């Protein structure tokens, strides 16, 4: 009985996460009340514009908020360890979280060009990472590094392991970053816009690679992106953030075909594939008027100033996350009208 209940818990369960930054102008809360789940072997996409709090959320999970200014001020982030034990990343000590980082939780970043140390060969960097978390001799670690490079489909891996990052292309470097992240067989992979800096053709290859690794290693993936086209391709469930709040959570089909929040609907309409043609036959890509309000200054619904459907009630009070269907939650007073 206990066994099954442990098994059913998600890999990562974030509830009511709030992050506070101390600044000279007073406290700023870039992320508040974030609920987020990642299941083992599934991909959760975290979607939002620049400044919506996606990256801050991921840094909070990793315990990498810039100290001493940033801290998790509320909420829990429960991570189910390989051993089955559950640890709250938000309240666990630095030592505990660091032992998990790169081992059970790994992260890949947006900028493959600068995320690798320029003065170490890529093989050395992976070997360093491996030796950090597994008790391996230097030569065994190097062999493991070469294996990891072939796992991420780098041709002639044994020779490329001796290359410095500047000798590789952007796509290759992102593969190396993924090899680094995968080197200790993590249970959770956090990918912070891993394809943004890459060519479209390379993007597809990298996404395929992440997908393949997710399936083969039944790893949970938290995929942070602002690119809905990418979301459609890889996500199982989607969490949409706006101005530091989760505005909608649903499976990927509902997000694209049955979205309840006006912001999600507007985002989907902004996809170039959904562009309408004007009277001259030119395609017009929709846009959302205005820009994200600063997280500091909002009373009422954060999206209200840009919302087509806003009424007075939206300006007055902030809606809670409301259940709109199975596994579908939305933060909008008027969700049922959509």
């Amino acid at each position, binding site marked *: 009985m206990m066994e099954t209940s442990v098994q059913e818990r998600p890999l990562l369960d974030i509830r009511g996460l709030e992050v506070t930054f101390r600044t000279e102008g007073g406290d700023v809360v870039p992320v508040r009340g974030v609920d987020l789940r990642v299941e083992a072997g599934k991909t959760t996409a975290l979607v939002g514009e620049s400044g919506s709090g996606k990256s801050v959320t991921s840094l909070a999970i*990793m315990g*990498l908020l810039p100290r001493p200014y940033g801290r998790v001020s509320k909420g829990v982030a429960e991570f189910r360890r390989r051993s089955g034990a559950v640890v709250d990343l938000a309240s666990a000590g630095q030592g505990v979280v*660091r*032992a*998990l*980082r*790169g*081992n059970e939780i*790994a*992260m890949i*970043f947006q*900028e493959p060009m*600068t*995320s*690798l*140390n*320029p*003065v*170490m060969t890529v093989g050395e960097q992976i070997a*360093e*990472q491996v030796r*950090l*978390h597994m008790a391996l001799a230097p030569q065994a670690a190097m062999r493991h590094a070469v294996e990891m490079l072939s796992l991420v489909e780098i041709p002639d891996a044994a020779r490329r392991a001796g290359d410095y990052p500047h*000798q590789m292309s952007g796509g290759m470097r992102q593969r190396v*970053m993924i090899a*680094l*992240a995968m080197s200790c067989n993590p249970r959770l992979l956090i990918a912070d816009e891993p394809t943004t800096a890459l060519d479209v053709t390379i993007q597809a290859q990298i996404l395929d690679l992440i997908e393949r690794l997710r399936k083969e290693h039944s790893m949970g993936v938290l995929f942070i992106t602002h690119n809905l086209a990418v979301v459609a391709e890889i996500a199982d469930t989607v969490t949409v953030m706006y101005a530091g709040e989760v505005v909608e959570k649903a499976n990927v089909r509902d997000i694209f075909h049955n979205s309840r929040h006006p912001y999600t609907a507007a985002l989907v309409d902004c996809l170039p594939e959904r562009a309408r043609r004007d009277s001259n036959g030119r395609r017009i890509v929709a846009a959302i008027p205005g820009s994200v309000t600063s997280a500091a200054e909002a009373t009422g619904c954060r999206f209200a100033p840009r919302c087509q459907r806003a009424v007075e009630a939206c300006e007055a009070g902030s809606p809670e996350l409301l259940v709109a269907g199975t596994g579908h939650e939305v933060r909008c007073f008027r969700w049922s009208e959509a």
Partner: protein
Amino acid sequence: MSAMTARSPVRLFLQRLFRRKLVLVAVIILLVIVLLAILAPWISPYSPTGMRVSQRLRPPSLTNWFGTDEFGRDVLTRIIYGGRASLGIGVAVVMCTMLAGTVLGLIAGYFRALDAVIMRLVDAMMSLPDILLAIFLVAVLGASAGNVVLALSIVYTPRVTRVVRSSTLVVRELPFVEAARALGVSTWRIMTMHILLNVASPILVQATFIFAYAVLAEAGLSFLGAGVPPDIPTWGTMIAAGQQYADRAVWLVLFPGLAIVFAALSLQLLGDGLRDMLDPKLRKAL
């Protein structure tokens, strides 16, 4: 690409460094001076302490190329031996300042809380004139080669600290440091493997400059009598001893002086060359 990888890194390094011919000249001069100092016992024509009163204050000749001093000792021999002490003190000062300055600079740059404390101390020390502080320290500690090294190391450590700190401030914000942290690398390894390796080139450049300063400062201290005791031949003590005969025997100060000039100048030129080569922005302009 294949041509790039085919060439060895050492050859590539030297090729870039010697693109400016002056740097090549500087390195050759430096190598000659260093080799002479190392091989002193085997190549010097005379004994550095062998006095021959009959031969005192002889001008340069075929038997004594740089002349003889007031005790009839061969000036060339003493310059060669003097190089051992002068360069030895320089090397020791470089090693001490690099070690202390790198550690302090990394700590100040990486741990923001300690930054203010360390840097205000460094600023306070840099506000004092170098040579005055060195004289004061030697006066307190007592004149010996070891104390000269200690004094000059204390004087020059703040320079290295500043350079290392400012480079650390830049590198610690780069994404690969955050990536390393995200992969669970410890603070110690981040500081040594990821930051130190990336700030190595400004440290290297600074080392050559400090070497030059140390050679000059040692000569200055010895000349003022606040340095190495006069019985050990260094370029500074030779000038100090020779100055009272300078009106009759100009070679007593000229040749040790030239030795100091060549050593310091070639080190400075090498430092300039290294700096230009290791700075990617300047490298394109060359």
